[in-house]
């Protein structure tokens, strides 16, 4: 049985997994790119090895090199996190072939669920509804897809066969739009996954995106850990998740949970996984895909069930049986996660890079922050813009929302722009508070400006601050010129200010 784990990832999820290993008394091996020498996961691990230059395909995607490092360092297992190599059956197979434990499902399960078409077929055979589309028909040409589209009906979605995270996805309202959309979807899919195959899927309007977490051991025991509500998305990227879902009732939860367990059993699933579904306004649900890995939003499930999903993954990989049964799984209170991205919500969510010069984390009761950054760390353009996750727990959903409000107000990140103001507006949105939203809410009906309307404003305060800041800077600049640069503190202040203001 292994007692040293290599974490084949970076950022908050690498740190999350390192922590779980620590708490289980396991040694850890980090791998890193040249851009990440000062990253938290490198500083934090027992051992750390350089993979290569910053771009992912020269570092975090180098499966062979990672396996080599694992073998040389004596790590007995590899945890892939999410993204990068997490859903690559060939990597999982190579890990197994090297005599190492892959902390995740078997390669066959990844392969079965990784190709969306095969996945949908598998699910239909298991008696689960899927969204109408071109599933199971192999890799179709543009011509074939254009012919099939009217049969499915509009609006519809073009989705990457190898895809995930909204990449290579396009929405199409009519046949006219299709040729252009197909071209750009294929281009994006090619860039993201090295595979430009796409398929079509009916777009269900008013749908909620709800997923069920499952955990399965090597002994055939599968338990579901209830649902997560993930409808709040922008460009098919989740922004905010909660558990339980405000639309869920016990009957639907039991039904979806049962289906999720069946799906996992159908592919002899092991470790943690997620069944993603769309739920329409009549509470019919359709299978979308299975994520054969740890999910970004796993912490909300941890907070309401008390199960540490990452530790459970490690225990399962070590051959242990699940320590709980379906009957033991309860829902305690409510949890919300806000993904904190280095993006400017006032400028069309444009990614923001730079050095985090100052950071104050929200702390206190019911707050969890999963992060891989710290004050002094440089956000580079090479990786995902998600820099941390703010997760809160409350006795009730209302308490969780109030707590999230205060946590967001406490969270200070200076040096890069973040989407914290977006989340603040969301917490003030009546539609969100009422639980009335679908997957299109953020893009089509939500506006930062509208939420701000009717709220108390402080233009005079802003005017005073703007004038005082300008005045201070002018004075300090004059002061520095007069006194020369002996006056350290002012000089430093100004220099730092100038750097920050660039």
């Amino acid at each position, binding site marked *: 049985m292994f007692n040293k784990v290599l974490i084949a990832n970076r950022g908050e999820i690498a740190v999350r997994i390192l922590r779980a290993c620590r708490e289980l008394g396991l040694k850890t091996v980090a791998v890193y790119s040249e851009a990440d020498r000062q990253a938290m996961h490198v500083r934090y691990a027992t051992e750390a090895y350089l993979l290569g230059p910053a771009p992912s395909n020269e570092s975090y995607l180098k499966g062979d090199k990672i396996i080599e490092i694992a073998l040389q360092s004596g790590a007995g297992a590899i945890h892939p996190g999410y993204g990068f190599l997490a859903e690559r059956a060939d990597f999982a197979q190579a890990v197994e072939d090297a005599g190492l434990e892959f902390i995740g499902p078997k390669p066959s399960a990844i392969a079965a669920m990784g190709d969306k078409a095969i996945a949908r077929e598998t699910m239909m055979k298991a008696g689960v509804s899927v969204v109408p589309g071109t599933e199971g028909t192999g890799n179709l040409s543009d011509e074939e897809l254009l012919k099939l589209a009217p049969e499915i009906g509009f609006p519809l979605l073009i989705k990457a066969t190898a895809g995930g995270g909204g990449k290579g996805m396009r929405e199409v309202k009519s046949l006219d739009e299709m040729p252009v959309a197909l071209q750009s979807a294929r281009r*994006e899919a090619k*860039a*993201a996954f090295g595979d430009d195959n796409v398929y079509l899927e009916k777009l269900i309007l008013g749908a909620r995106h709800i997923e069920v977490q499952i955990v399965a051991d090597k002994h055939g025991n599968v338990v579901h850990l209830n649902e997560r509500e993930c409808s709040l998305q922008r*460009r098919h990227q989740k922004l905010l998740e909660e558990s339980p879902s405000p639309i869920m009732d016990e009957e639907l939860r039991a039904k979806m949970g049962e289906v999720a367990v069946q799906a996992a059993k159908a592919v002899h699933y092991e470790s943690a996984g997620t069944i993603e579904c769309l739920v329409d306004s009549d509470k019919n649900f359709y299978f979308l895909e299975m994520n054969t890995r740890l999910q970004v939003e796993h912490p909300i499930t941890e907070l309401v069930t008390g199960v540490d999903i990452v530790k459970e993954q490690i225990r399962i990989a070590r051959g242990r049986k699940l320590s709980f049964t379906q009957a033991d799984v309860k829902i305690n209170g409510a949890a919300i996660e806000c993904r904190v991205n*280095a993006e400017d919500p*006032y*400028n*069309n969510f*444009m*990614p*923001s*890079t730079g050095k985090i*010069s*100052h950071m104050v984390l929200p702390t206190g009761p019911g707050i969890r922050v999963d992060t891989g950054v710290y004050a002094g760390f440089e956000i580079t*353009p*090479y*990786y*995902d*813009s998600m820099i941390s996750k703010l997760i809160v727990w409350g006795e009730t959903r209302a308490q969780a929302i109030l707590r999230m409000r205060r946590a*967001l*107000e406490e969270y*200070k990140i*200076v040096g890069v*722009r973040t989407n914290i*103001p977006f989340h*603040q*507006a969301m917490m003030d949105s009546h539609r969100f508070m009422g639980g009335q939203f679908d997957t299109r809410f953020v893009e089509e009906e939500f506006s930062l400006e509208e939420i*701000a309307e009717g*709220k*108390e*404003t*402080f*233009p*005079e*305060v*802003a*005017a*005073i*601050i*703007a*004038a*005082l*800041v*300008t*005045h*201070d800077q*002018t004075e300090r600049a004059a002061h520095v010129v007069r006194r020369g640069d002996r006056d350290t503190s002012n000089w*430093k*202040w100004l220099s*730092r*200010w100038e750097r*920050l*203001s660039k």
Partner: protein
Amino acid sequence: MKYATTIDGKEYIVEIIDERHVSVDGKVIEVDFESIEEQPVFSLIVDGKSYESYVYRTEEDLEVLVKGRLYHAQVEDERERRLRAASGGAVAQSGPFQLKAPMPGLVVAVPVSEGQEVKEGDVLLILESMKMQNELKSPRDGVVGRIHVGAGDSVEQRQKMLSVE
């Protein structure tokens, strides 16, 4: 010192009287203003009310974040103001718009060509950064001038990519 401060279009005349007093449009207010540790974070107490604010300087203005809302501020002191008034009031607002890279990245596509007419909101360039494709749009109507980059080029932050005239 007096400052004409414009917040989202409305002008306030803010006079700095001394360390503890300012006047806003002639009304004297006691203020307690502190800069928090070399950071663009400020704490202002006015009349017992505690406000914490971030201030960002951009090329065009100061952005002041107070209680979760962003205010755009232009500040001019008296001298600047007189100069501007003397020069006829209008600051040169025209001239070509330079599209600079807002962050380092990879140019995915340039869907316009030199000499092409564009409208406000038209996509000028698609830049990939942080695993996202970002559409950079024209801020106004005009004609595309020189294009300095092409699909596949890597760009540094603030690098000039093209102009709209």
